[in-house]
């Protein structure tokens, strides 16, 4: 075990991270990330993966820490956006926000929309901060344990992660397994990561660079969601009013948020659709613990605070396996892993030692981002409510332009938009066949790493 990750370097690393936080550019970008994430997350028809995909190309033009801080902000900002649409419109941006809908929407219908938004914001903050503290405390243990793993162990962890995703994903085991293999197959063309030889390029030099991650993300989540919304007519608007009043002021609600944070943190460390599992588990637990379970489903505050805290805690906790094991637990973390590769950061157990400014800077950015989330969520509740009612006809040309321009920037050429359109069509095709694109994206990002570790293991034992 690497002894240099013991306490002394922890304080030294934390100090380096704090020094990195002195940059005003970093604060601005963290704020911008949270704001942009909340904005895209609130827009009808778009969830956190779409938010991340639309703004992913920015990472190409920013320094590592500000770039990743921006993307991380977009992630949890968009998660909060999902809660806003769940509460106000009754349509969750993604599965994680379904449990928020159970209590949040009845509260909004009862004229307590702003109060429900406030409770959701404060619960998200509680979950986010608790999980960030958890990462700081857990990091030395996780990092130390990961250092014992060789390439074989890492390959086994990645394979287990993919298997867990196949078992717990929304499409059913057999469909998810097919999507995982399709994702692995899409990662094949281009340069072999071990020998550096071109393969499966079919004599086309354009294919030697392989499939662009930016185009895949924008196509699958940006253009795919847009095309799906246009074809299924699920463009939603709301006429709910966001009424005023107070916030998280009951002891039972605070306790629910803390319990939710713990559930979220533990499940967030495991690749099994953590947010959904955590939020449903938290809702069920709150109902069981409540003295008035009959109020659940009609607007129980504990039932709103618990799942919302667990949802955000799971999102934050998923940074630990990403940074310390290089293991993404959901498609958004897979995109972040791709972004880390783009900016030249190698996630793994030695990251806190090799790049302490980046690692600790990002951990502090998680705290900072949660504070921004609280400020923007509480301060601009009325604005989010109005934004959620924006007509779809005004949105889709903007999303289309962002997708095409973003994929152009990602690929630095016209092959990006072409791939983006192809993947958009593929996403709709897969959804029509009840297949979720999430396992595909996860496998696409993990594929080259899994292959590298597997080949290293085979070659060392040959």
């Amino acid at each position: 075990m690497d002894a240099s990750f013991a306490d002394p370097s922890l304080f030294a690393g934390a100090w380096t991270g704090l020094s990195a936080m002195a940059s005003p550019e970093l604060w601005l970008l963290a704020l911008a990330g949270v704001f942009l994430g909340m904005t895209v997350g609130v827009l009808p028809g778009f969830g956190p993966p779409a938010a991340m995909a639309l703004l992913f190309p920015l990472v190409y033009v920013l320094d590592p820490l500000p770039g990743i801080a921006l993307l991380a902000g977009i992630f949890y900002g968009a998660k909060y956006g999902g809660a806003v649409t769940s509460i106000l419109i009754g349509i969750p941006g993604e599965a994680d926000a379904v449990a928020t809908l159970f209590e949040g929407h009845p509260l909004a219908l009862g004229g307590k929309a702003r109060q429900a938004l406030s409770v959701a914001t404060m619960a998200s903050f509680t979950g986010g901060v608790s999980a960030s503290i958890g990462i700081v405390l857990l990091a030395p243990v996780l990092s130390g344990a990961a250092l014992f793993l060789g390439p074989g162990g890492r390959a086994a962890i990645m394979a287990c992660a993919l298997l867990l995703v196949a078992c717990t994903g929304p499409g059913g085991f057999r469909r998810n397994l097919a999507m995982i293999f399709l994702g692995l197959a899409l990662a094949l063309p281009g340069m072999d990561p071990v020998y550096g030889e071109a393969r499966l390029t079919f004599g086309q030099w354009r294919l030697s660079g392989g499939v662009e991650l930016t185009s895949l993300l924008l196509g699958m989540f940006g253009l795919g969601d847009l095309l799906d919304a246009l074809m299924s007519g699920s463009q939603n608007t709301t006429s709910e009013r966001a009424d005023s009043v107070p916030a998280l002021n009951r002891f039972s609600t605070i306790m629910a948020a803390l319990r939710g944070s713990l559930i979220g943190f533990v499940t967030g460390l495991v690749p099994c659709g953590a947010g959904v599992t955590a939020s449903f588990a938290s809702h069920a637990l709150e109902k069981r613990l409540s003295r008035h379970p009959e109020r659940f489903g009609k607007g129980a505050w504990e039932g709103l605070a618990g799942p919302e805290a667990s949802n955000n805690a799971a999102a934050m906790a998923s940074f630990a396996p990403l940074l310390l094991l290089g293991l993404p637990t959901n498609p958004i973390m897979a995109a972040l892993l791709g972004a880390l590769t783009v900016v030249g950061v190698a996630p793994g157990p030695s990251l806190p030692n090799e790049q302490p400014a980046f690692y600790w800077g990002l951990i502090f950015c998680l705290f900072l981002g949660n504070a921004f989330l609280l400020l923007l969520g509480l301060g601009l509740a009325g604005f989010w409510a109005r934004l959620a009612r924006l007509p779809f006809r005004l949105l889709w040309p903007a999303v289309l332009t962002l997708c095409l321009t973003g994929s152009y920037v990602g690929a630095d050429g016209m092959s990006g938009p072409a791939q983006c359109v192809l993947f958009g069509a593929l996403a709709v095709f897969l959804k029509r066949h009840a297949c979720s694109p999430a396992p595909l994206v996860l496998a696409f990002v993990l594929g080259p790493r899994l292959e590298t570790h597997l080949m290293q293991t085979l070659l060392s034992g040959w």
Partner: protein
Amino acid sequence: MLRFRDLLFRHTLRVTLLLTGASAFLAAPPAFSAGLPGSGLWPRVVGIGLVVSALLLPKEKNARPILTADARRGARNLALSCLLWTVLVPSVGWTAATLLTGTLACRSGGCSLKESLILSLSLSASLWFGMERLLHWPLPKGALFSLLSGV
């Protein structure tokens, strides 16, 4: 009795996955070179996995979704906008292509001319400012610009 189009819909995914898996397996370089695992080993494993998982796919029970006229029009407009932007960017440049495609997309989406112009202008201007001025990322100016400016 199933109609041919419904039958086709039910088997398209399986056939697509089978073909992809078979291509990955057959077009891969040799699995072993000089007695060691080569660069073709992993593609072959993935190819076999894809073929097996395609065969294991559950039987499609859903019928082919019927698209409404609005849905068809929406998808067509989106596809046309993508095509137009992709064709226009290399020739007239990013700014003109985005402005024109944005305006046409807004119009086809049901916006008024005023709304369309304001939206596409503000979107193009803010994206151009963000990319070119703030992030210093050059957006394509197009062959026409190069021709006119003599570059």
